[in-house]
């Protein structure tokens, strides 16, 4: 990675309100980080198969599989963590359960543990991420094809992310001691360290910005290091300020506009002139609204990145376009 902002960061957590495109942004970030031969693991934890959708690859399971090649030959590897599989793996790793593991599954214990105790479920899900982040070449039994330069976590949406990342807090009511509690403590230590940053994805709309501001406060309260605000689906209008100011004037004269339209061979009537003028006025309103949201975001005092609206969606190179934009901004440093 080229940005100095995130030197030493190994885990990028990406959250945002539902509908802001956080999975797409997480994918673009993973791609941008996978430059120059770097290996990046992209993890999802909500069973949505979002990675499979964005990269247009078959459904992901418990295995880490390559989903894309980053610019300059890096690799993006995808993983969909399933809480049940994570619990069994965890039990196997720490307790060498053997047959008992299968029995737990048969009796529905795994179902129970992963549904009724939400804190436990989250410990398991992040536990898997924690394990991937901590892999080092020096550790015995670590295969080199499972080592990563960075891990990007497509986390639950802003409404739940504090609860999800605050595993320690959630678990304290349930398990006051014992191995699960210890695991939660280690995870929290990693999340609060300089190895981790949490990025907030938003649109320039009221609800997403409101949730972003609330989430930032909550995450700060949990001592989790915030990374960047990523404004997604930003539109750069083809109309400049000058034009809009002329349109907004009380004494705006439509005559020159009508003349231009006539000389372009269009069938000009009052409806067309009024309609085009109104289109400009609408834009002014929309921009004013966006400015209000931008100001609210600026108060967060976080580095801010901007991704354009890709009209065709992620099909047809949309992801590559976002990756290129993000890479460029990472190189040049964040704007505001």
């Amino acid at each position, binding site marked *: 990675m080229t940005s100095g902002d995130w030197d030493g960061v190994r885990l990028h957590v990406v959250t945002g309100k*539902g*509908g802001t495109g956080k999975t797409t942004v997480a994918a673009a970030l993973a791609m941008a980080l996978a430059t120059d031969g770097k290996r990046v693991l992209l993890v999802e934890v*909500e069973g*949505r198969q979002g990675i499979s959708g964005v990269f247009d690859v078959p459904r992901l399971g418990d295995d880490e599989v390559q989903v894309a090649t980053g610019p300059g030959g890096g690799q993006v590897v995808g993983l969909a963590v399933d809480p049940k599989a994570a619990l069994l793996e965890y*039990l196997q790793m720490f*307790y060498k*359960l053997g047959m*008992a593991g299968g*029995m*737990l599954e048969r*009796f*529905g*214990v795994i*179902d*129970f543990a992963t*549904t*009724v105790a*939400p*804190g*436990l479920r989250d410990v398991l899900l992040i536990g898997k991420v924690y394990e991937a982040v901590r892999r080092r070449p020096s550790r015995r039994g670590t295969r080199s094809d499972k080592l990563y330069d960075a891990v990007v976590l497509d986390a639950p949406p802003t*409404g*739940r992310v504090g609860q999800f990342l605050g595993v320690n807090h*959630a678990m304290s*009511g*349930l*398990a*006051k*001691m*014992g191995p*699960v509690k210890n695991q939660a403590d280690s995870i929290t230590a990693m999340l609060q360290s300089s190895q981790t940053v949490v990025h907030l994805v938003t649109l320039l*709309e*009221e*609800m997403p910005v*409101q949730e972003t501001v609330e989430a930032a406060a909550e995450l700060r309260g949990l001592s989790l290091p915030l990374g960047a605000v990523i404004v997604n689906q930003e539109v750069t*209008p*083809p*109309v400049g300020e*000058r*034009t809009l100011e*002329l349109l907004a004037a009380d004494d705006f*004269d439509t005559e*020159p*506009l009508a003349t*231009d*339209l006539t*000389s*372009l*061979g*269009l*069938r000009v009537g009052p409806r*067309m002139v*009024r*309609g*085009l003028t109104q*289109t400009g006025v*609408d834009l002014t*309103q*929309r921009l004013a*609204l966006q400015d209000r949201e931008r100001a609210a975001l600026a108060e967060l005092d976080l580095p801010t990145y901007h991704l354009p609206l890709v*009209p065709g969606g992620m099909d047809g190179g949309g992801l590559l376009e976002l990756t290129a934009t993000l890479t460029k901004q990472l190189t040049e440093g964040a704007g505001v």
Partner: protein
Amino acid sequence: MTTQPPLLDIDELLHDRSVSTIVCCGSGGVGKTTTAAAIAIRAAEQGRTVAVLTIDPAKRLAQALGLAHLDNEPAPVEAIDDSAGGSLDAMMLDMKRTFDELVLRHSAPDKAQQILENPFYQAVSSSFAGTQEYMAMERLGQLHAEQAGDDARWDLIVVDTPPSRSALDFLDAPKRLGSFLDGKFIRLLMSPAKAGGRAYLKVMSVGVNTMTAVMSKVLGGQLLRDAQTFVAALDSMFGGFRERADQTYALLSDAATAFVVVATPERDALREASFFAGRLASERMPLAGLVVNRVEHTHVPSLREGRAEAAADEADELDTRAGSGWQPADTAALLRLHSERAAQAGRQEAAIGRFTAAHPTIPQVVVAASAQDVNDVEQLRDIGAQLAD
């Protein structure tokens, strides 16, 4: 060729006094709450006595309805026009409190306290996936119970549904909680408490003991004990839970209920709406129609995207005027802006067309995108008017 779907007219629904519940559903972020509020206001101003249950309204929308904070209790909305004799009460779902009340109602006082203090209960009541959906159903059941009888408080209840990823979560929540409580392990955790003489338990007991030992080791004894207490307590109320959930489910398939599916004119939201419509049909639940929210339109429909783009390029070649006033470059910019809007409108139309092709008989109505966020009663009235267009 495009087929024209039938038009959804919300007034027809509101004039039909036999319809006493309207459920607004759809995937997250499509404007369900706004739509529910707009329908409720329109109904009240046409003379119906209405209660609207919102789940998680945006701050400004809540303020518009006079909801200052999370409150399970209906509060009258003062800003509406009551000249037709109607009224509107609004409330926000308080998930935890609804659950607490459910516990209090279905268990003995001493036991209730035990449940409320149990850490598992506290975790489940505030964060179990599906609790919000389940509690929305429960609250709807409660409101409906208050609605019955001669001195009914309301003759119409409008409900918003939780902002889940999938619109189907709302329908599935009671079943999920039910199947969870019916789970094998729950039964097993209960088993020491119940008379252990059952034959199957004897056979299983070796396994049970091993398992309990493992659980103890992994989770710690305290956690296991809490879980057992919680499950034992829940079990005593379970009959009541299930009965209630079944009643609410039955209520939803009643002819007195109408579902309004809300979507934005995008592929994903409409695909979700399409799934939901199919699901309602297979459950024989009454679907009134589809509201497509935030639809872009252009002010000059006759000027096509491509023509506007070409004209803009030509405008760049026109001679500039003297002075600092309007220039051909400004005209070009406006034409490009129009072209973008037209392209956007075209994409949305195509997405809606796919829904129509799959569901040609489901009535639709379109609500125009507004340049501003909805945050007062006047704007909600305007949306209501569009729903009856």
